[in-house]
């Protein structure tokens, strides 16, 4: 009897999809080293000019901006998502559990456009926050929140929260509660239990959540484009501009290659930086 029944049937469709994806990625690589012929969609011969052009301050600044925005977003997302994930896994009231779960997960399914649009109303000059702060007398004239880096980060934190909550909650729910009980019976206070047991044991979730948040933010386009309004340039907004306003697909391709490389490098770096922490916590 065949020890691996249906192997070919099960693997070949996935193989086809993988070939398609690889071909698409190769197409990006190939375009990134082709010359741009203005006014047409045709590309010229092979050249490194696209990558050389990226050394110009404008592009270097966009890369730096993107990394900074992604990093800030991931940090704030982690700080806000952790208490939610903790409450989600530790509350014994099942109605409250469902409420927290649905509130924190629903935004994931609304897509970037709906959520970004909502933030435009919150942050606008005649928007919710400005009106509220004016009415309360905190401000005497509206503060510019749209088209700023801070506004972009606030909206991105909201966009990234659900996936972080899910990953942290998955890690927290798999922690053996007996460790905490043991520490408690030995007289450790709640803060000490959290710092020496719960937090270290949830490290794998923190690392996974942080890198995913970073990668998602790197990928985000609607938020920096709409909230940044062209005044906050990131890799994604540049790629779209180059591709669809000037039809410079070779340059857009080379930017996305560098974007991909940068995002992979940061994630690899995060994993490396986190591994001593994980070893210390004994989870690796």
């Amino acid at each position, binding site marked *: 009897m065949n020890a691996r*029944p*249906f*192997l070919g*049937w099960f*693997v070949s*469709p*996935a193989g086809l*999809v*993988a070939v*398609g*994806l*690889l071909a*698409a*990625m190769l*197409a990006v690589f*190939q375009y990134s080293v082709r010359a741009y012929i203005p006014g047409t969609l045709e590309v010229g011969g092979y050249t490194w000019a696209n990558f050389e052009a990226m050394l110009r301050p404008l592009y270097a600044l966009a890369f730096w901006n993107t990394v900074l925005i992604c990093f800030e977003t991931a940090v704030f997302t982690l700080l*806000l998502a952790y*208490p*939610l*994930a903790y*409450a*989600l896994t530790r509350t014994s009231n099942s109605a409250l559990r*469902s409420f927290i*779960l*649905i509130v924190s*997960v629903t*935004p994931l*399914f*609304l897509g*970037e*456009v*709906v959520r970004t649009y*909502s933030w*435009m*109303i*919150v942050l*606008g000059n*005649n*928007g*919710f926050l400005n009106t509220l702060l004016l009415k309360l007398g905190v401000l005497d004239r509206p503060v510019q929140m749209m088209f700023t880096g801070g506004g972009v980060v606030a909206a991105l934190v*909201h966009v990234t929260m659900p996936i972080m909550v*899910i990953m942290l*909650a*998955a890690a927290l*729910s798999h922690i053996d509660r007996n460790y905490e009980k043991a520490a408690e019976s030995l007289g450790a206070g*709640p803060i000490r239990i959290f710092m020496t047991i719960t937090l270290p044991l949830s490290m794998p979730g923190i690392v996974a959540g942080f890198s*995913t948040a970073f*990668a998602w933010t*790197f*990928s985000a*386009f*609607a938020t920096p484009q709409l909230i940044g309004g062209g005044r906050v340039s990131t890799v*994604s907004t540049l*790629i*779209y501009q180059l*591709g669809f306003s000037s039809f410079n*697909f070779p340059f857009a*391709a080379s930017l996305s*290659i560098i974007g*991909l490389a940068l995002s992979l490098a940061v994630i690899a770096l995060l994993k490396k930086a986190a591994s001593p922490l994980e070893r210390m916590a004994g989870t690796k």
Partner: protein
Amino acid sequence: MKRSPGALLLRWSGRVLVAAILLFVLLPGVVVAISAFNDRAILQFPPQSWSLRWFWRAFSYADFAKGFWNGLTVTVWASSIAVVVGSAFAFAIHRYKFALRDFLEGILLSPLIIPHYTIGLGVLILASQTGIGRGFPLVIFAHVVMVLPFVMRSTYISLENLDTRLELAASSLGATPLRILFTVTIPLLIPGLLSGWLFAAILSFNEFTATLFVSSQATQTLPVAMYNYVREFADPTLAALSVIYIVVTATLLTIANSFLGLGKILNVDAH
């Protein structure tokens, strides 16, 4: 159990913190819901006069209706293909060793970290090089690629929980592998496959960045139509549409939660 004042303070400050974070998550939804009933054609908070006309416009605006049906077509095809392809592959990964196994798995999971604009741009360039054109198959392919990792994960979790003794029992009673697959394995995997399909469908319906690259005027999905609308108009039509979106999604999730157990699907249930 008696608690010290310090522990009590900690407990309550924890609760206040969680409530504040929940408020942050809910705030944009509430603000957008109130704005949707604003009578005036500019975004202003709070509204001075009220009306339902933006809801009417959201329903009658042709691009939204077209985007909705386009999106539905793409979503149904993409998530169905992804469930068949992804779960079969997850099964093979889980049970068998074969050539290029880890390589293939790595490639198919990579859309989790490859920026979506890179995927969109790649598929677009590929289409122009091969002369496929920007029709529905192209958009559907891009979506299959992006939702496949989620389907694989969901099937993988179900396979971990599957009791293989049932398959052995069927086998020892003389059932052929094909029969075991269709009468034992697949029926046991149904909840996992369904939740994988649902997850894929919701993600595909809302996917924006890559779709912007690969869709054309004829194949644009709802999020793309919405994005184009914000860039052209400043009225609250999109707020009305967002409200419909939020209500439908929250309802679907509440239903999914009570029937399937969202915590189980997302693997966040305490053990």
